[in-house]
Structure formats: C-alpha cells, structure tokens
C-alpha cells in the first residue's frame, strides 16, 4: 500500500511563517515553528484524535469558534493564533476545570517533575483556582494489576489508557465506567488488567493516575539519568531508554523508533529489568567443586574453563542464544574454530539451512522492513505467534489492519491471538510449517496442491483461499503492485526439513514477486533475540562470518551437538546465554548430553536448572544494559548496546572473557575495547564492511541499505534434497510463551506471569542457597 505522501505548505502561527507537511495536525505542525500547543489527550500513536481534553484550543482566522489544534489539519495559508486573549482565557479555563478535582499531591506523586499536568498548569494555567468547594477524596493507591497502581483522584479522564487498551492492544480490558463527572477507569468486576502490553498505559498517562508498582517511589526525575539502549529480551529488539539511578536500572521506557517498535513496549521488556538487580543474580564466577558450584576468583574460573576446553580441543562445541551480541558470537566462533579446531557451533534451535539457501533468504531485495507490515496490502503470518515470539510486531500487525486495512492472514498449527483482526486463519498440523509452505507455493503457482495440503494437515480450499488473498484481486492491482509481506518464524526452517522450508519460502517469494516489489518481502522472526546477528557473525555449523564458506567440513548443529555429547563424541560445550534445557528443543536429549559432557562452560545470569545441575564453570553474564556490542534486528538493522549501568559484583564484559579464553587458546586478538571488538566484527562480515559506531548511532542502520550489501553475494539456491518436508516432532510443541524466560521468573512483580511456577520455586531455592550468603558478605 503506498505510504502517504504529502506536499509542504506554509501557514502562519503567531505571526510566524512556518512550513509543514500538509494535513499534519496543528499541534505537530506548530512545533516546527517552535510554538507549543499544550495537549493532554492527543497522542498520535493512539490513532485518530478525540479532542476530549480541550487543552489545545487555538484561534484560526475565519473560523468563529476556537478549534482544537490536535484535530485540525494545517492547510496552506492558514492563520493561527495561540497567544490571543481568547485562547489564553480558554486554556486557563480548561486548566482550572481539570484541577477542580485533581488532588495536587505532587510531592507524593511519582509523576511529579515529569508530569505534563504540572508543566501545562505552570505554562498555561491561570495561577489561581476559584473552586472553593471540597475536593473529592478516595482510597488510594489502588492496585489495577500486579504491575500497575491506579490513583483515581488524580485521573483527568484523558482517555489515553482506555484508548490504548481498546485501539492499540485491542484487549478491551480497561474501560471507562459510569458517566459524566463520575466516570472512572476500571476493569470488569474487579478483574486485574493483565495483558502483554499493559505497561504502556503507565507511560501514556499524562498525570500520576497510573504508576508502575515496580518503579513506585524509587526516584525523582532529577535523581535519574536516561540511557538509550536496545532491549534484547526477544528478537523484536525494541529501542528503550533505561532510567538509571546510582548505576542501577530503575525503569525502562520506550524510545520510539518507527522502524522498530513504534513507541510501544511489551510488559516483559518494560518490567523484566528487575531481574538485573535481584539477589539471585550470579555476580561472581562459579566453579563446580566437589559436586557443588562455588564462587571463585576470575583467575581460577578462567583457568578451569580454559583447561577444560583445551582438553576437549576439537571435541568442544558451542551454543549461543539469548542476549549474546554479534561480537561475542564472533569471538566464540573464533575460539572454537581457530583456537580449539572445532567446527561445532550453532545459534539456531535446530536444523541447518544450507549456505546457498541462507544467503538467498538473506538477499537484500527480499527483506521486508518492520513498517512494511503496516503498509502492505496483505500480510501472511506463517508458523509464528508474534505476541510470543516478537510481541511488539503483534501491535504493528493490528495497526496495519486497523489503520490501513491491511489484509492479515495467519497460518499456524494452533489458535492464534490474531484471529480477531485476521481476514483468514488457516491451520496446519503441528510442525508441518515447511510442508504447508510447499503446499501454498504450489497453490500460488496454480498447481494441484490438494495432496500437499493434506500432507501438511491443512484443508485444500483454505490454502486456495489464502493464495487468492495473497495474490490480491484485480481491483487491488489497479492501485499498483500488490505488496505482500510474509512474517515467518524460524521454526519453519527447523529440524530435518530446514532446507525444504527455506526452499518453499523462496518459491513463495518468487510466486508473489516479493523481490521486485518495494514494500514487500520476507521477515523472519528468529528464535533467539540476536538470532540474525549471530548467524551473520558466523555462529553456524556450516558457514563463517557473513555466510562465508568454511575451510573445513561443516560441524554439528545444536541437535547434533546434543547427540554428540550424549554419545561421547564431543566432550565439552560452551553455552553462551543459553540453558539448553529451557532454550532448546528436546529437553530430555539435552539433559543427557549435559550430564555426559566432561566440561560445561556457561555464561549465565541466573541459576536455571541446566546451569545449576550441569555447568562446571559459570561466568556471570551481563544484562543487556551492561553490555557493549552489536545486535541485529530481524530486518537487518544493526543496532548497538552501550553500557548504561554498572556491572554488579564482579561481572565482567563478556567479550573480554571470550577474548581472554581465545588468547589462552593461542589466538592473537589484542582487543582492548568494545569498539575494537566491534571493528573486528565489521571487518569480518563482508556486508558490514565500513560500518562505524557513528553510522550506527542511536537508531541503527539496516545493512541492506548500505553499499556493502552487495558483498553478501548471490547464490543460486540449490535444489532441495530428496525426501519431502515432514513434520518435525521436536519443534511441534515449541511455541514458547512470552513469559517463559528467566528474566520474568526473577523479576519480583513479573513472576506471577511465569508459566512454570514449579521451576520457579526450585530455581529460587537453589540460588538463595548458593548466592545469598556471598552477596550478603559482599554488600
């Protein structure tokens, strides 16, 4: 769908000529001329303006009544006054009305100091109130959910929170009850407001009516600093601003990036920062000694790890996941490949896509941007559940349907939360994603797909309907090329049918002409937060940095490593931000594998079961605001993590630990700073060539849009090997809840969402036993 284009017009505001794009709302256009029009209810992210608060009244020449600046689009030659007597009186009147029932308890209010109501009262209010009647008083604060407190005295009924619930996250749980001056924000019958995105209402609230219970009274705006970062708790990599006080993270806010997150955050991203500062966090190196993990010095831990790995030599293996940065991935790869001579490493959950296909899938022409999800004519969500795998994209898909009438189709093995906005929902058998894609590609090519659909456990006519939807009707074609985005999950290329899945995707792309259409393409949601970056850094069994060919034979993939360890063919494994029992399929196999491994080295921040029971050396892992390094968004946006808070305890930069181990294994790296590690990465990956930290900046840069992108090289996709795509059992039950993460488990206010309460008790107890005394003496 063509993105709106607008021409620039000139209008006059307070006697100043200002140029602005036509039809921008006056409030936004005025900012271009350095004129501020105060607003409460206006928030463009929430959709159409509602004009409820009446704070933004302005005078427009030729219109007798005052108009709301938030809902009046600018037109050429418009003459606007925001300082005239009429406007001043009206604005003072609105402030006076709003403060009638506001308790003015700013000193105890968490919003104090960063409160739009304070600022606007100060800037546009009359200074006095003529309201002498008693104000209303109620019990406060009240709990709206375990995460959010509500103070109804302070509410000015701007509708932002209920609009969010109804129009953005579309959960319709938070509503306004009663009428008129009695209206109040509430939920149904005292149920809590629990939804994946509920925390956004705290940030939206222009007064202190909705506050975060985790941040409650922790700091004042003048006590804190804000540090830009990138949340790496899931592949969506939302841009965030970490609120820092005394070098600890106290809060996470959205740092709006229209190409990444659109200004929203999921509750995991918003509240899981608490897990960085809990006593259960590992802050010292641990070594297994006499069957128990014990805190030791760094030197000892490095010695043990180094010795264990060297003993294993080529029989060592590595698995990276979670928050691992690309630099760390690269160093792990070099440690294993060059230092130990082992090709066995992986950053995927299972299965290997052959290099040629991987390169073809990464071709810049095929890559969709995140904003394409919003503007495309049709979007197919294929074998992924956005709300669990990359939550923020769920909001983007809903926005596309709501605002741009994007046709949304969902193909999944189970029920989807996108059923309501979706035009079409198609089911297939669990694990049969690749087979389904093959059937769909056949349908799109106009071939007989009935048998293929049956193999995938889908209904043939539904597959046909889906193919019709993706192809678009003739009237759609009249409006220009039909833009289709396919949002697919990594599990489509999992297990044995990885190549089939990749092949099917490429033929889908071919049939829909995705490569030739601007605004169309493929967008993969990898299983791990930096999945794409790690693959590009060469953390793959069959490819080096930048999908380069390997000198030697291909190594084992994650499943292969597990099998190798269990069979004794491999003896050591290096786990980077990965507890295989949690993060990788086939828990049982991994349990056996880790039990038989002679050396297990792990970087972990919490003692989850796999680490607790099997790791021999545990290095304390960094949380993302402590890290320095590069991560790559699923759409190829290279983003930087910069240290925002201090390392707790004895935590060290992980790239430094890996470099140290690599040097002990005989490599000459001479890395002295995080920037040097980044340089090494950008030099190693051909299509990152020439990247600098300045170029990445705070907003990141898509490598596909840089000249060096051609370095990826075109690869003729090899023909699929023998054997049909089949359901892979390992991935069948692998839909993993958003809340199934140690960061959720160890965040005090978030833990109620953790889906495995039985694990929670175990992990807690073990951590407390091991770490608590140490921490007490340390503090």
């Amino acid at each position, binding site marked *: 769908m063509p993105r709106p284009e607008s021409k620039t017009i000139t209008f006059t505001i307070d006697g100043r000529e200002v140029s602005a794009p036509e039809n921008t709302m006056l409030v936004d256009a005025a900012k271009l001329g350095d004129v501020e029009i105060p607003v409460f209810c206006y928030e463009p992210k929430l959709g159409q303006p509602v004009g409820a608060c009446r704070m933004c009244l302005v005078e427009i020449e030729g219109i007798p009544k005052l108009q709301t600046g938030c809902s009046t689009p600018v037109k050429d030659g418009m003459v606007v006054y925001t300082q005239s007597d009429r406007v001043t009186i009206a604005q003072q009147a609105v402030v006076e009305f709003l403060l009638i029932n506001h308790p003015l308890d700013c000193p105890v209010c968490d919003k104090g100091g960063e409160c739009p109501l304070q600022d606007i009262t100060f800037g546009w209010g009359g200074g006095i109130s003529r309201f002498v009647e008693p104000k209303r008083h*109620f019990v406060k604060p009240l709990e709206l*959910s*375990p995460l959010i407190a509500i103070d109804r005295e302070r509410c000015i009924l701007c509708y932002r929170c209920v609009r969010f619930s*109804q129009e953005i996250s579309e959960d319709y749980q938070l509503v306004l009850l009663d009428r008129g001056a009695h209206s109040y924000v509430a*939920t149904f019958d*005292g*149920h809590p407001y*629990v939804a994946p995105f509920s925390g956004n209402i705290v940030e939206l609230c222009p007064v202190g009516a909705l506050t975060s219970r985790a941040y409650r009274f922790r700091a004042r705006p003048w006590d804190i600093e804000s540090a830009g970062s990138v949340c790496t708790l899931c592949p969506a990599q939302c841009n965030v601003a970490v609120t820092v006080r005394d070098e600890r993270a106290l809060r996470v806010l959205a740092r709006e990036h229209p190409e990444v997150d659109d200004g929203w955050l999921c509750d995991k991203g918003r509240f899981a920062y608490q897990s960085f500062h809990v006593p259960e966090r590992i802050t010292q190196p641990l070594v297994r000694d006499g069957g128990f993990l014990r805190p030791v010095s760094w030197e000892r831990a490095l010695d043990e790890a180094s010795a264990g790995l060297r003993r294993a030599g080529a029989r060592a293996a590595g698995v990276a996941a979670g928050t691992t940065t690309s630099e760390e991935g690269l160093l792990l790869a070099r440690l294993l490949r060059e230092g130990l001579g082992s090709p066995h490493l992986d950053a995927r959950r299972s299965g290997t896509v052959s290099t040629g296909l991987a390169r073809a899938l990464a071709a810049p022409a095929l890559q969709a941007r995140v904003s394409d999800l919003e503007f495309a004519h049709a979007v197919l969500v294929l074998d992924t559940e956005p709300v669990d795998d990359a939550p923020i994209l769920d909001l983007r898909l809903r926005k596309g349907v709501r605002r741009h009438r994007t046709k949304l189709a969902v193909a999944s093995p189970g029920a989807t939360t996108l059923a309501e906005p979706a035009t079409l929902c198609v089911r297939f058998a669990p694990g049969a994603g690749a087979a389904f894609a093959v059937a769909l590609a056949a349908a799109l090519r106009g071939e007989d797909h009935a048998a293929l659909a049956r193999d995938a456990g889908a209904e043939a006519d539904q597959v046909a309907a889906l193919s019709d939807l993706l192809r678009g009707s003739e009237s759609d074609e009249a409006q220009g090329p039909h833009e289709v985005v396919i949002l697919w999950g990594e599990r489509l290329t999992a297990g044995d049918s990885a190549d089939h899945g990749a092949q099917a995707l490429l033929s889908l792309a071919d049939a829909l002409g995705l490569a030739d259409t601007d605004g169309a393409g493929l967008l993969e949601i990898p299983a791990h937060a930096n999945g794409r970056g790690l693959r590009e850094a060469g953390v793959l069994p069959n490819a080096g940095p930048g999908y380069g060919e390997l000198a030697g034979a291909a190594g084992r993939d994650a499943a292969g490593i597990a099998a190798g360890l269990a069979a004794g063919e491999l003896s050591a494994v290096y786990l980077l931000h990965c507890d295989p029992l949690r993060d990788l399929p086939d828990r049982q196999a991994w349990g056996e594998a880790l039990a038989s491994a002679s050396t297990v080295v792990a970087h972990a921040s919490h003692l989850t079961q796999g680490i607790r029971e099997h790791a021999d050396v545990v290095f304390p892992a960094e949380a993302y605001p402590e890290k320095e390094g590069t991560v790559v968004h699923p759409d190829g946006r290279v983003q930087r993590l910069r240290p925002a808070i201090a390392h707790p305890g004895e935590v060290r930069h992980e790239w430094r630990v890996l470099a140290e181990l690599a040097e002990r294994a005989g490599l000459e790296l001479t890395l002295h700073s995080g920037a040097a590690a980044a340089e090494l990465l950008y030099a190693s990956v051909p299509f990152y060539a020439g990247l600098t930290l300045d170029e990445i900046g705070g907003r990141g840069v898509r490598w596909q849009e840089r000249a060096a992108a051609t370095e990826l090289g075109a690869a003729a996709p090899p023909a699929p090997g023998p054997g049909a795509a089949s359901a892979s059992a390992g991935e069948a039950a692998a839909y993993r809840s958003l809340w199934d993460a140690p960061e959720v488990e160890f965040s005090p206010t978030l833990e109620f969402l953790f889906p495995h309460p039985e694990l929670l008790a175990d992990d807690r107890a073990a951590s407390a036993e091991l770490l608590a005394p140490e921490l007490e003496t340390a503090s």
Partner: protein
Amino acid sequence: MSPLGWDTAADLEKPPAEIPSPGEVDVPEGLRAEIEAHMANYPDRRSAALPALAAAQREHGWCSPQAIAQVAAVMRVTPAYLESVASFYDMLETEPVGRHSVYVCTNISCSLRGADALLADFQRAVDGDPEVNVRAFECLGACDIAPMASVDGVYVGPLSSQDIPALLDDVRAGRAVLPERQLARRLVADPHANSTEFPQHPAQGAAHGGANLELPTEDPATARGRREPR
C-alpha cells in the same frame, strides 16, 4: 459516599477478564437466541450491545457480572466492554434492583408541577419493598401529563400522591397500572388535530385535547405544605 467502584482495587487473585471462551459460560438458550437475532440486525456485531444487555437484564433483573459474562460469551466481546456500555446508560442497572421499576420524572416540566414531592412520597411508600425500584429519572418525554411516572415502561400521569397506593397495588398485583391515566389513552392537546370524521375514543369522553386533562388543582400554598412534610 462515593460512587461504587471509585474505591475498589482490582482483585489480583482473579484472572484477567478476557473474552469468555465458548463453553466457559452457560447461557440460557432463549437469551442466546435473542442476542444472536439482534446481532444479525447489524453489520457489526457490537451494535447489538444495547439490545443484548437489555435482554440480559430482563433475564437476570439487572446487569450482573454473570449476565454480562453471558452476553460477552455470545457476542464475543470482553465483559469489560459491556460493563462500560451498561454503566453509561440509565436504564441498564449495574446494581441489584427490584424487578418492578418506577421511574418518576423529576425534570423541569414535571418538577414545576410537583414531581419532587411525588417522588418523595413514592419512596416513602415503597420503603422496605425490595421488589419495586423507585427512582428519579430525567425527562421521560411526557411533559403533557406532568407529573408522571413510567411504571415498568408504561407511562401514567398526571399523578398525585393520592394515586400512589392504587398504583403500587396494581404493580404488585401485575395488573395494568391506573388504566385511565395511561398515556396510551391520551389524545393530543391540539384541538385542531382531530377534525370530525371518526368516532370518539370511548374512554376519552366527548371532550377533545387538553380538556380531558386534570390539571393539579391544589393551590401553591397546599403544594408547599405537601412538599415540606417534616
């Protein structure tokens, strides 16, 4: 006193109130059929919220959480959405009330003719009777028979305090309330509206228009006396 809900926190033990899954809520068959029929009337199923809630209120007596959950289950919307709608409208009760409703209009035209005293007398007369819900109501659109009341949807007026016992007897017995005072029987006041050709409505007698209406006859002094009973 604060309106209900203002001081209420969420019960963190409860699960979030999402759209009830089918089978989670038992819906009486008749109610389900009625709501589904309403939904078929509109291009968007949400439009049926008002008629559906009204139907549920007839079934349950008020829009109880259970009633709302039932409607939500049939309409496939969240209960919070329906609660929000129900609490906006005066005729949808979000608190338990008596099964019979007596809305006494206390808006300006009725007030000018003594509705406030009528309401007070009504409330005294039903004090302690949980079955009859007497409440003040904004203009019911029957200022020509002021002061008046809508008794279970039937408009009667003009009323005086003397009519209250008879009226309540009729309500409790399930009879038609004060048949001779019902709006349905009233002719328009405009003397020109009815030319000649048709026979007079027997119940209305010979007189046309306003002539058949009894204006409250008491003088201001007695009116004042009645209004300040204590």
